[in-house]
């Protein structure tokens, strides 16, 4: 007799933010059908356990990019994986489910599935989430097989079932009837289906882990936050982004429904902080206003939320909107500004000017909402002059101090499948890829070049990135932890690249 129908586990590696949504939502769906389940977040557990180890950065590189690590890290990590495999087996579940946020969750998922099957060959395992749905086999050393990652996992016996794309409609059938194989719902959830999803259940997560470790607003404040989804897809189609390839339609919940979910979680689970998983929380101004109005009316300045936000063209967001956001509990927004150069942003199809950015920055600051900018380095058309405009932008707002403003130099441009740059512009923009083995540090899709912008080489891009990291740190716009992590990654990118070129 099993104790649970399923345990849903969120797998490393991703940045620690709020309690992850997928296991909590799957648990809620199972609750509706009378299935007993529980949830675990191994992403935060692993990161807490290694954070003070001297080789922590090497382990992160391994998890993200499948590269080797020091022996001490290797032994520690595999012991950790084995302990967790035993923990899961001892839960005595009919199914163990792994939720993969991105390809960076694949490495760990391979290792844990391998260890579970080694210890208990007949344990049923199901895998889902974007990390497997994109079927990206570019990061593993068997691309010659021309097989999708999902097929490789099933055929080698590492798991029993895989859900591609939205799992909400097929999960129950698999769990109840022990179905095996690959399942693809084949379509995005509709507006109605999204509205009908149950409120996620966060009650089984070990909340103390987040209280002590999750700097949910990237500030000093630490709290337990739940993840909420208001929409799927995106209203923009930025040239470097692949969201459109797996969520082609922008579908959103009614604003009232989003507010209902937050209030229900607050009232039943005692959670006051929320992270919104939307590509853009203000993708639909209608739903965003509805949500803020409902929250401001029913629970003014009680709960806090944050999420990804877009600078809209002048006039589309009013002063009243900013006040409403603050009243509803919006504490922090992350804005994909990407570049200080209008020319670069126009090419990206970001659709906002420097004036739009200025209005947004000042308006957010005025109502006390903190802001974090994501900046990308080495965009396809970016020149040294464009790059300097990005540094100028950072300098221009030096009067807004950390943590009211945080700058995140996220990384260099990846041109990967699913993005318009890769899918439609390669030939037109003369983009070619260097012949770099896929297992190298950094994505395979980092190593591109174009004759149309010869100064934008991989080495130059990383060098500019390094410069921007130092610049932002010198201007107190990032934490020491983020600074060290970024510097380590940039250093390894260049070291590994040079090593490969020498071979």
């Amino acid at each position, binding site marked *: 007799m099993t104790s649970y129908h399923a345990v849903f586990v969120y797998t490393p590696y991703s940045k620690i933010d709020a309690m992850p949504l997928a296991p909590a939502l799957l648990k809620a769906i199972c609750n509706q059908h009378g299935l007993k389940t529980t949830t675990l977040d191994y992403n935060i557990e692993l990161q807490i356990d290694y954070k003070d180890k001297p080789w922590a950065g090497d382990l992160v590189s391994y998890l993200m990019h499948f590269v080797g690590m020091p022996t001490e890290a290797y032994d520690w990590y595999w012991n950790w994986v084995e302990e967790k495999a035993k923990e899961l087996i001892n839960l005595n579940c009919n199914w163990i489910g792994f939720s993969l946020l991105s390809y960076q969750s694949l490495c760990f998922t*391979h290792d844990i599935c*391998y260890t579970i*099957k080694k210890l208990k*060959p007949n344990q049923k395992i199901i895998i889902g989430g974007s990390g497997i749905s994109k079927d990206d086999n570019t990061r*593993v050393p068997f691309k*010659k*097989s021309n097989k999708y990652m999902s097929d*490789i996992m099933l*055929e080698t*016996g590492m798991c029993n079932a895989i859900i591609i794309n939205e799992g909400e409609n097929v999960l129950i059938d698999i769990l109840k009837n022990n179905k095996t194989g690959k399942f693809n719902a084949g379509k995005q959830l509709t507006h109605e289906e999204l509205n009908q999803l149950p409120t996620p259940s966060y009650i089984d997560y070990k909340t103390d882990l987040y209280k002590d470790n999750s700097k949910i607003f990237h500030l000093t404040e630490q709290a337990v936050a739940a993840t909420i989804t208001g929409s799927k897809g995106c209203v923009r189609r930025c040239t470097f982004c692949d969201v459109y390839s797996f969520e082609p339609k922008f579908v959103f919940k009614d604003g009232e429904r989003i507010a209902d979910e937050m209030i229900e979680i607050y009232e039943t689970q005692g959670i006051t902080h929320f992270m919104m998983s939307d590509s853009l929380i203000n993708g639909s101004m209608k739903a965003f206003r509805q949500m803020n109005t409902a929250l401001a009316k029913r629970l003014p300045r009680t709960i806090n939320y944050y999420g990804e936000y877009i600078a809209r063209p002048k006039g589309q967001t009013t002063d009243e909107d900013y006040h409403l956001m603050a009243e509803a509990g919006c504490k922090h927004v992350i804005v994909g500004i990407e570049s200080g150069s209008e020319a670069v942003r126009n090419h990206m199809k970001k659709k906002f000017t420097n004036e739009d950015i200025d209005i947004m920055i000042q308006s957010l600051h005025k109502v006390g909402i903190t802001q974090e900018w994501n900046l990308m380095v080495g965009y396809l058309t970016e020149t040294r002059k464009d790059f300097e405009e990005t540094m100028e932008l950072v300098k221009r707002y030096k009067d807004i101090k950390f943590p009211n403003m945080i700058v995140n130099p996220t990384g260099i441009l990846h041109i990967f499948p699913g993005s318009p740059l890769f899918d439609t512009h390669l030939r037109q923009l003369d983009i070619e890829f260097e012949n770099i083995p896929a297992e190298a540090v950094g994505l395979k899709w980092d190593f591109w070049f174009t004759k149309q912008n010869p100064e934008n080489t991989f080495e130059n891009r990383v060098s500019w990135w390094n410069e921007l990291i130092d610049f932002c740190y010198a201007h107190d716009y990032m934490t020491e932890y983020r600074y060290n992590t970024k510097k380590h990654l940039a250093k390894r990118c260049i070291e590994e690249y040079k090593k490969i070129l020498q071979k």
Partner: protein
Amino acid sequence: MIQLTFDIIENNKLPRGKIILNDNVLHNNFYDFTTFDIKPNVGSNILQITLDNKIEKEDTVIENNKIIKDVCVVLKEVKCMITKEILTNLDVSSSYATDKGEQLKTYGYLSYNGTYTFNFDYPFFIFQKNKLFYQ
């Protein structure tokens, strides 16, 4: 599924022996084939290949310090038919014990009566991450 590819070298007779996977004898006779499929477990596996019918004085013919005729089995390739990965560096995790009690490095070459033992993890993309390969 893993495919083993052999070079079979005969001198008036075929080499003979066993193929054993995780203590299960899958073959026990002459090596009259060049490929052989095995189905490993997810996890650790032990593959043993033996040679048991060689009579050195009769089967190995040497002229001018060169072996011109012999009876032996050479494990040429270990390939996962699902991922198309081919294992190299077979000696990193293998041993060859002859019936005379010697331990030899053979690079997959079985030219004495004895047992070649190859320890590997499956799938290979997990095995390839083993620290053995990057130390």
